[in-house]
C-alpha cells in the first residue's frame, strides 16, 4: 500500500466544517472527538491535523475525518494539507487514537454518570424555571448527545443555553468530553420559552 493509492473525498458541511471520507478505515468501527490541540497531544492523526493552521476540532469516525476550522482559509487549500496529513498518518501504520489517549478520558459509563449528575444538580433545576428540561440521550466514545424538552424545545435562546450554559457546565465537571450534540427536534416544540419574532 502506498500513499498514492489512498483516495480521500472532501465534502464541506459548512464553511467551518468539512468531512473527509477515506477509502479505508482510519479508526475502525470507532469514533473519537478532539476539541483542541492539547487534547490531541500524542494522538497520531489528530496531532498532525492540529498542526495545520486554522484547524480547531477533529472528529475521527471509522473511515471519516471531520475537521472544524477557524479563519478564512479555503477548504480546497486547507483540504490538500489535511489530505496529506491523513495519508502520512496511514503510512505511519499507527493507531488513530492510542491506548494512552483513551486512558486519559473517562469511560463511557463514567461520562454518562457524571453528565447525568451535572444535568440533575446544575442544569435542570435552572432550566425548569423556564419550563424546560435537558435529557442525556447517549454517550458514544466521548461524544455526548442531549435533548432539550419543555420550554427549551424550540426556544429562541436554545443555542445560547446549549453553547454557553450546558456545554460549559459539562466541560467544567468532566475532562475529556468531546462534542456535545443537541439532537432535539426543535420544530416540534409546542411551548418554547422565547419565540422568535420580527420585533
Amino acid at each position, binding site marked *: 500500500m502506498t500513499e498514492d493509492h489512498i483516495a480521500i473525498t472532501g465534502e*464541506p458541511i*459548512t*464553511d*467551518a466544517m468539512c468531512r473527509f471520507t477515506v477509502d479505508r478505515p482510519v479508526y475502525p468501527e470507532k469514533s473519537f472527538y478532539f476539541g483542541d490541540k492539547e487534547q490531541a497531544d500524542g494522538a497520531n492523526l489528530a496531532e498532525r491535523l492540529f498542526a495545520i493552521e486554522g484547524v480547531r476540532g477533529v472528529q475521527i469516525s471509522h473511515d471519516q475525518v471531520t475537521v472544524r*476550522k*477557524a*479563519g*478564512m482559509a*479555503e*477548504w480546497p487549500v486547507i483540504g490538500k494539507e489535511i489530505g496529506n496529513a491523513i495519508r502520512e498518518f496511514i503510512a505511519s501504520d499507527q493507531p488513530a487514537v492510542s491506548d494512552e489517549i483513551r486512558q486519559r478520558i473517562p469511560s463511557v459509563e463514567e461520562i454518562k454518570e457524571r453528565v447525568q449528575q451535572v444535568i440533575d444538580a*446544575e*442544569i435542570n433545576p*435552572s*432550566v425548569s*424555571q*423556564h419550563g*424546560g428540561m435537558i435529557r442525556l440521550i447517549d454517550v458514544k466514545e466521548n461524544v455526548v448527545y442531549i435533548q432539550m424538552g419543555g420550554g427549551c424545545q*424550540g426556544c*429562541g*435562546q*436554545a*443555542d*445560547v*443555553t446549549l*453553547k*454557553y*450554559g*450546558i456545554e*460549559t*457546565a459539562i466541560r*467544567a465537571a468532566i475532562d475529556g468530553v468531546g462534542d456535545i450534540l443537541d439532537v432535539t*427536534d*426543535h*420544530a*416540534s*416544540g*409546542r*411551548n*418554547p*420559552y*422565547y*419565540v*422568535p*419574532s*420580527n*420585533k
Partner: protein
Amino acid sequence: MPRILLLLPTTTYRTEAFLASAGQLDVEVTVGSEHPNALARLNPTALLTLNFSDPEQAARQVVEFAAEHPIDAVVAVDDQVTLAAAAICQALSLRQNSVESVLAAGNKHRMRQLFERAGVPSPRFKLYRLDSDMEVLAGQMHYPSVVKPLGLSGSQGVIRVDDEPQFVRAVDRLTKILQAESEKLKGDQAEKEPSLTSHFLVEDFISGPEVALEGILSRGQLHVLALLDKPDPLDGPFFEETIYVTPSRLPTDVQEQITRSTGEAARALGLSEGPIHAELRLGTDGPSVIEVNARSIGGQCSHVLKFGTGISLEELIIQHALDDDFELPNRESQPAGVMMIPIPRAGKLKQVHGLRDAEAVTGIERVTISAHLGQKLVPLPEGSVYLGFLFARASSVDAVETALREAHARLQFEIEPFNSDAESTKKPLEPINTDVAFRN
C-alpha cells in the same frame, strides 16, 4: 483572544447564525440579552442580562463587566439593540455609530427630516398626533398615502390608504397596534422621543418596484454587499415582505443610483460604521429611500448571502466589527433568493404539510418553518412573525424566483381560526412526515 459582546434579543431569529459564525472565529463571546438565560449563573462571563430599553444603564453595566473582561467589539443583531450597542460602544470608546445617528434611524420622522435636509430623495411626509380629529385630517390628505408608525419595524403598522374612510380606519388600527406594542415602545428611546407613541407619519405612496440594499459602512464609506430585488409588488394595503432575489436584475445605471442614494441617506443620518439595511422604491423620478436601518437584513434571510468562498454575513459583520481594515469579500456569483413565508390568515398553527415536496423543488436549498405548532399567528399589519423561510440557489435569478414560488405552492398550512374549535382543513391532506426537521 479578542472578546466580542453579541447583543442578542431573546426573540431574534438570528441567534443560531451569529453563534455559529462567532464559533468559527478565534474570539471569546459574551452574549447580552434582555432577559436572564436560565443557566446564566453557570457562566457569568458569557451570559449577561442587559436592559436594552435603558441603553445608558446597559452601558454602565458593560463598562463594569469590561473592566475585568475587556471587550473588543460590540455587535448588535437586530433593531431593538442598536441603540444599546451605540451607547455601550460610546462608553467603551469603541468604533460604532453615534447614539444620535441610531436614534435617527430608529425614528421614521426624524429619518425623513434628515433625508429632506440633505436632499436625499424620499417620500414627502407629514407628522400628526394620534389624538387628532381624524375626520378632519382625512379631508386634508392626498391619496394614495401611507400611514405608518414612527418606531416599529418589519412593516408592522404600515397601511396604504386610498380615500378618507380608509384613512380613518387605518389610523384607528394603528392606534390599537401601538397600544398593544406599548410595552416594546416604552423605555429610554420612548422617553427621549415620546412622539414614537403619540404621533404617526403620513407619507406619499410611491408606485413602483422595491429593492433592498445590504451594506457595511466603514468610516462612513458604504460597501455594498448585495442588492436584492423584491419581485412581488408591494402596493398595499399592507406591505408584507415575501421574495428577495439577488443579484439585481435592474440596469447597472439604476443600481448605481440606488447605491448613491443609500450612501447619501446613511450620511444624512450620521451612520458611519457597521451593517446597514436599506429599502428603496423605484418611482418615476428614480430611487426614493424608504428607510435605512443600522443593522443587517432581518429574519433568517441572511442565510441567502454568502461571500468569498462561503463566508456568512454574520461572520463578515463580526470580522468587520473587530477590524475595520478587514477586507470585505464580494458576494458569491451564484444567484440566490429567499422567501419569507407570509401568514395567510390569523389563527393557531396546527400542522404544516408538503415540506418534503417543497424541499424537492429544483434549486431549493432549505425550507425552514420557524413558527412552532400551536403558535398564534397574526398577519400584518398587527403581526410581526413569519411562518418560515424558503431558500434557493440556481443558475439564474429567474430560476431562483420560480423555485421559491413553486416550493411555496407545495406547502400547506393548517391554521385553526381563533375562538373556534373547528378544524380549518378544506381538503384531505397528505400524511405528515414526522422525520422531517422543521428547522435546519
